[in-house]
């Protein structure tokens, strides 16, 4: 209890949490990879050699060029071009942007909705809880991929025509979010029911704190640990679900492709020797999902004090 305590940052650096992070080389690499992919995606408009979405700049003359190092490659197109003459590298950069956007935004919405429902259900119980949990049961009673398939089908059909182009992203996000919020809700509800009875919550009630204030100031911070873990895993899942939906033809349109769409389109060229159109986006997707999963894995262990 000395007065000259080390700075908070030093304390953080010294914490078990950070230590376990620094000790796990795999996690370090995974984080590095994820961050670079995210950065590259964010900076795509500046670092991508071409704008693959500006159709006016595409030339069929450049189509199906192999990677720059291969025979017949063009140095302008590092990873080659696809059947429309689109630069594969740029398409990947922009595609990861969309994949990540789908992942992050859907996780965000699912998380916010799920956590809110979980907190309310768990804290107040009773009828609200019963209703929410029955809804959750129904959601859980149906495979994610099918729900996503149906939701995107229906929403696409129900939306006014002129919104279609821009709606694809929103539809995907919605479809994925609506199938994943349940996990957050269940987890948070469970921990909230435990926390609700904890004595620190009782102490807060004793001083007349409102339920809302108790939920947000006291309980929320204490139930976020597992939520974070689910969020990372779901980020990876969402990116994959989007890719799978693309495969089934309800993903992003090829004019605005995500990694999944790029793979779906490239897939058709797998036997024709134009391997680069499918291999590079697939690799990016696998590496990204793997890295995010590895981070989620580590987070799960790190946040579980019993596993130390």
């Amino acid at each position, binding site marked *: 209890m000395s007065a000259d305590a080390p700075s908070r940052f030093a304390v953080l650096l010294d914490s078990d949490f950070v230590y376990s992070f620094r000790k796990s080389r795999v996690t370090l690499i995974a984080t590095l990879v994820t961050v670079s992919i995210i950065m590259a995606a964010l900076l795509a408009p500046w670092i991508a050699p071409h704008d693959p979405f500006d159709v*006016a700049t595409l030339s069929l003359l450049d189509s199906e060029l192999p990677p720059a190092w291969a025979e017949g490659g063009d140095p302008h197109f590092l990873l080659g071009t696809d059947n429309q003459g689109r630069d594969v590298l740029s398409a990947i950069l922009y595609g990861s942007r969309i994949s990540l956007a789908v992942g992050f935004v859907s996780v965000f919405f699912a998380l916010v909705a799920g956590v809110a429902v979980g907190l309310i259900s768990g804290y107040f119980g009773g009828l609200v809880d019963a209703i929410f949990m029955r809804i959750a049961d129904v959601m859980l009673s149906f495979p994610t991929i099918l729900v996503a398939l149906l939701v995107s089908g229906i929403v696409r059909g129900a939306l006014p*025509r002129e919104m279609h182009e821009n709606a694809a992203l929103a539809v995907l996000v919605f479809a994925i979010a609506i199938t994943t919020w349940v996990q957050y809700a269940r987890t948070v509800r469970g921990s909230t029911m435990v926390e609700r009875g904890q004595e620190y919550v009782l102490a807060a009630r004793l001083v007349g704190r409102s339920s809302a204030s108790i939920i947000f100031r006291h309980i929320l911070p204490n139930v976020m640990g597992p939520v974070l873990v689910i969020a990372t895993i779901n980020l990876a899942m969402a990116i994959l679900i989007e890719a799978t939906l693309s495969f089934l033809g309800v993903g992003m349109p*090829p*004019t605005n492709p995500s990694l999944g769409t790029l793979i779906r389109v490239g*897939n058709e060229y797998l036997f024709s020797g*134009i391997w680069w159109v499918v291999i590079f986006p697939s690799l990016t997707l696998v590496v990204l999902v793997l890295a995010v999963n590895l981070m989620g894995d580590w987070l799960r262990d790190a946040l579980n004090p019993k596993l130390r």
Partner: protein
Amino acid sequence: AAKTLRMADSTDIAAMDPHSMTESNTIGFLNHVYEGLVRYNDELQVEPALAASWEFVDPTRVRFHLREGVTFHNGNPFTADDVVASINRAADDSSPVKSNLPGVASIEKVDDLTVDLVLKGTDPIVLNYLTNIYILDKEWMDKHDALLPSDIRAGKENHAVANSNGTGPFMLESRQPEAKTVLVANPNWWDTPKHNLSRIEFSPIASDATRIAALLSGELDFITPAPLQDIERINGSEGTSVIEGPELRTIMLGFNYGDTLHDSNLTDANPLQDLRVRQALNMAIDMDLIQKKVMRGKSRNAGLLVAPPVPGYDAALDERSPADPAAAKALLAEAGYPDGFEVGFDCPNDRYVNDEEICQAVTAMWARIGVKAALNAQTKSKHFEKVLAGTSDIYMVGWATLPMLDSYSVLSALLHTKSDRMGAWNPGGYSNPKIDELTDKVAVELDQAMRTAMMSEALGLAKDDVAIISLHQQPLAWAVRDGVNLKVTADNKPRLWYATVD
């Protein structure tokens, strides 16, 4: 020796009942089991089949003399009763095939081997229609309560949907939907077989990659279609090769001729009504490039809405002028759109060869003259729903003129002013009185030369008007294992009674 041909197509046959649907791959496949009064040979010429000969008793009555000694697979003899029952069945109100028999008023039995087909009016192409109308055994239908095709409304199944009894060169041995349909050669076929097959094993494989893999791994002898981008690979692999040919189907882009566009920044005008704009859009498309890159040199660029084998085709008109973006831009400016405009552009993504890729390329080319097309590529059922609802600005369609194999098909469905019976595929509302007039005449003109001239004239008018942009005839590519000898027919229907296996 027993020769088995293992083949795969991208879709399964829908049903065994030839009057229950009109899908051309199913109709084509069923032609091995069932036959019509007439059939197309491998040159797409009408030739006698179950009818040995025919004559026009008067302009609206055709008399068919049926082939003698033909038996159905179950041994029943083939007679005029079967023809009457079958034509009535096909033309029934509940039959989707009735659209393929538009001019038929009734069918009358003259004697056991003669029937008269009574027409509503003069119909020069009635035989073409009949190539698609197959004959079933009346007794068999009677026995199985299948005298009418299945009625969806009533929710009643029809025996003919899963079973068959035809006169064709092959007989159904077994069928597992979506898995395998096995045909065996009909030893009692009336015709002299040109094939040497004893057995056909047909499997549908929807995934292109899997279908090719199965061919390459030796599990299949014959696949349709072979994706263009894989031709090289297949030809490069030992033991497999691609057989190609042009298809009848012409790919084209239709326009919205209404007063406003559906998907545009312009709200009070429709530039597509202006001929110069349509010309500009046409000129901007570099079909040579698309032919070379997207279609890998396999397609046939088209200046006309029909392919060469189709009567009415005129080689002189078929020339497609090379792309000229500069001129196109000038025309646009002249029409008052120097900066172009936005427009909706609808495409299927699973209907035609590289349909979506073509549209993407076209979008890019139009972008270069300032026209920003909002490309909406979607699955065929949704695409055509949208197109036919008339809510599309520019849309892709392909037209093979089948089963008529005649330019009249294009004139009546695509170019004629929209009405109850005409212009079913003219949702954009194109209307040219001259073309309408010619079309109506062609419908009843029996003189083949005059008919053809009139059709060519009408097609020429459409071309001048850029009523519909014609792009190309798409290529047909099938792939076979070495030793399979087969000719590609332009209607995309393999005729395996011509096939041999070494």
